[in-house]
């Protein structure tokens, strides 16, 4: 038999704020977290704005004790988000006597976290200082000497994508199954899905799951600008991300973290935990088409949606809301619309769909986690967040995108889609908890 898996806590650090309620209210109010870039001087870049985490202070309680030194921006965010989630789940404070009574091997971690940022100044200076103009290549002995003197060992290793889970394990003494996946923009949806499978199978009682990422650094923005994937509406950052709108022209890069506490239902009931919702379905697929483009008919997206429905034992008619991948690129939004039509058939035009990326930006590996949290809040408050910046209908995107205003709705079962660069697709289905 497989165990039921419920969500008992949530937390996030996002471009719209750093606590659950503030960010949710801002999403419902259609506010934007997108503004000119402050992380570095991007004024000469093709794209000069992003959805940055602003005015952020790492909680003193987490900083104390020196357990988390040299950590990357994303690891700060994910520790904070995890502590919010842990607290909401009414789990005992780390290092307290009550915490010591938990079985550490029954608490796992599964994140979809991205790599940390390069030590940019050191990295660039070393490269430029060892450039041999005659040979038009690096003089490696010079580079090696400089590198050995200037890079910080611990800060370098903190860039490994496995390090955020290392810090979660350390902070929460979580010694159960421990994994990180990095399937680009689908990563944290996939992490939540696979963490659910781990609890279903009985390999852990609790999984701390979600994702974190920050690519708002010069080479990150460079990479996406070269791909021409980013919106370049530099005069209008707030209006730049326009999912499903005919004038959409690219996504807006964001940063942050989202963490959910997933728990075996019996375990949650036994300790009288607050149950926020239940994870009932998960599907994963690959486009197997091109690393540069989605399959034009959304073949992989359709398969992920169908697999998740099958896993949940539900049909399209049971889905009351879809939290879209909805990046605001020409390709994604029309492909996703097409995929929803194929998977949902006649139901497609009846199901409301929205993309919070219009306000939150695209948190890349962390996007799926903050979108899953949004889904749970929609279930809790029976209201759907809008797709902001929607004004010009696109004939290729002709479904109900909850334009510009939040919408009260009876929602019992919701779906969240995430599609990664390269063709990995993941879908989660989350439901109101009913005993």
């Amino acid at each position, binding site marked *: 038999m497989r165990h039921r898996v419920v969500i008992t806590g949530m937390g996030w650090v996002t471009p719209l704020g750093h606590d659950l309620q503030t960010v949710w209210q801002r999403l419902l109010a259609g506010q934007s977290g997108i503004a000119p870039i402050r992380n570095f*001087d*991007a004024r*000469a*870049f*093709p794209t000069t704005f992003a959805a940055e985490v602003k005015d952020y202070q790492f909680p003193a309680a987490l900083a104390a004790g020196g357990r988390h030194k040299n950590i990357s921006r994303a690891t700060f965010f994910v520790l904070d988000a995890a502590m919010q989630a842990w607290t909401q789940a009414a789990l005992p404070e780390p290092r307290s006597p009550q915490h010591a009574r938990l079985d550490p091997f029954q608490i796992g971690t599964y994140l979809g976290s991205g790599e940390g940022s390069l030590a940019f100044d050191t990295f660039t*200076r070393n*490269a*430029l200082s*060892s*450039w041999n103009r005659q040979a038009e*290549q*690096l003089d*490696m*002995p*010079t580079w*090696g*000497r400089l*590198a*050995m003197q200037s*890079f910080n060992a611990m800060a*370098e*290793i903190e*860039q*490994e*994508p*496995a390090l955020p889970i*290392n810090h979660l*394990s*350390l902070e929460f003494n979580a*010694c159960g*199954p*421990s*994994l*990180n*996946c*990095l*399937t*680009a923009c689908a990563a944290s949806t996939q992490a939540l899905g696979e963490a659910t*499978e781990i609890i279903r199978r009985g390999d852990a009682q609790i999984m701390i799951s979600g994702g974190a990422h920050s690519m708002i650094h*010069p*080479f990150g923005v*460079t990479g*996406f600008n*070269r*791909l*021409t994937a980013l919106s370049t509406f530099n005069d209008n950052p707030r209006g730049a991300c326009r999912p499903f709108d005919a004038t959409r022209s690219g996504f807006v890069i964001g940063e942050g973290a989202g963490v959910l506490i997933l728990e075996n239902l019996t375990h949650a009931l036994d300790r009288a935990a607050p149950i926020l919702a239940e994870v009932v379905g998960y599907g*994963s*697929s*690959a*486009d*197997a088409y091109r*690393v*540069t483009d989605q399959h034009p008919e959304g*073949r*992989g997206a359709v*398969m992920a949606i169908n697999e998740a429905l099958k896993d949940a034992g539900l049909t399209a008619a049971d889905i009351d809301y879809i939290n879209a991948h909805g990046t605001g690129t020409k390709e994604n939004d029309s492909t996703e619309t097409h995929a929803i039509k194929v998977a949902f058939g006649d139901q497609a035009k009846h199901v409301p769909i929205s993309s919070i990326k219009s306000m939150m930006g695209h948190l890349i590996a962390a996007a799926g986690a903050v979108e899953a949290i949004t889904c749970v809040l929609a279930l809790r408050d029976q209201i759907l967040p809008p797709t902001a910046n929607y004004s010009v209908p696109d004939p290729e995107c002709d479904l109900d995108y909850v334009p510009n205003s939040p919408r009260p709705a009876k929602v019992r079962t919701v779906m969240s889609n995430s599609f990664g*660069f*390269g*063709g*990995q697709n993941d879908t989660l289905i989350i439901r109101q908890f009913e005993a």
Partner: protein
Amino acid sequence: MRRVVITGTGAVSPLGLTAQSLFDGLKAGQSGIDSIKAFDASSFPSQIGGSVPAFKTTDFVPKSYRKSTKIMARDIELAVVAADNAVRDAHLATRGVLEAFGGNVPDQTWFTPDPSRMGCNIGAGLICADLNELAEAMVRAANDDNSLNLARWGKSDDPATPSGMDALAPLWLLKYLPNMLSCHVSIIHDTRGPSNTITCQQASAGLALAEACRTIERGQADLALVGGGESLLHPMGLMRWTLLQMLNTTSNDRPQSACRPYDVAAAGTAVSEGAGVLVIEALEHARARGAHIYAEISGLASCAGGLPLGEVDDRGRPLAHVTRRALADAHLQPGDISLILPPASSVPRFDLSDALAMQTVFEKLPAITTGRGNLGDSGAATQALDLVAAAWMLERGQLCPTLNCDNPILDMPMVRGASRSAGIEHVLVAARSLAGQHAAVIFSRYQEE
């Protein structure tokens, strides 16, 4: 719950471009460690590494996909070659293999899988950008003090010359995304089922195999390509591993004897590269198509150390735990295990922790061996190569020796000297990443019910 077996293996390693060459090299006690020739490492304290013999990636992808090899970082190339090896070994006429055969399979032993029933889960590391490629672009935007001028990086002063960033290829970023190992492999072989990219350093491949195995057990796929690939053999890898004090810096004149896992004289490992891919398959599916079965996957477990980065438990408790969990998952007792391939980092404090963990779990230790003396450390490829080697040793009934372990610590029963024949029923492959993730996998001799 469905049983899952291994029906194909593929490897690229410093010992060669196939799983066969990996096994033969390990069996013969060959070393893949040599002076680094991929770049001038003369200013680094450690100047040795494991380098995969020269190959052309275009020889391992169908003609229609050759253009895409231009956007493959080294790590991706290694995984693509290992996957080709594995898929052919399993006699799967995937899209890529079929195209290479000109559309017709050679004989009835080849099977065309249903793409939607085949997954791909290949572990990866932090892929490093090509320093020369990046530096060549940065030079266009250098300040006099050798810092980068972000204004000129973003936009050129002179419309006739490109800005720094414009000197990078448009698809530059795609070369370095860790999920591209799985993505390219899934495109070449048309695998449309569950696809993931685990990034847990040395434990990635065991975790990837376990996750894909569960999808097959549950019935969500019939087959999967699993494993891992990484190259640490680049300047950034060498710099990072040197600063972390993981590398041997005293054997530059004797590279072949540098990596000494579980030896009293162990003094660090060497940076290396490689990829290992296995075809895993539902037993009923493998039997129906008459596939060759290497072994059955019988036990899987994972856990975390819960320790600060770089530290290891002084008694090896997490490794002992994950081993016990894998044994329980396989319904086996410690005494049932015939062979162990342990984490084996060749760094004394890690090696000691492993040895204590194994002594805790096993009253009488079975034979232990590792390829780390031959191969060094290749990050996400490390356990993938172990898994391939373990499948071969079990299937061939051969214990390959541990290179350079002349005087084992704590009298560990390492396989030493020449390889030897032995009946191997159950083999444990355990890994620990530097970041503390542990993965344990047990393969068992396949027996019909």
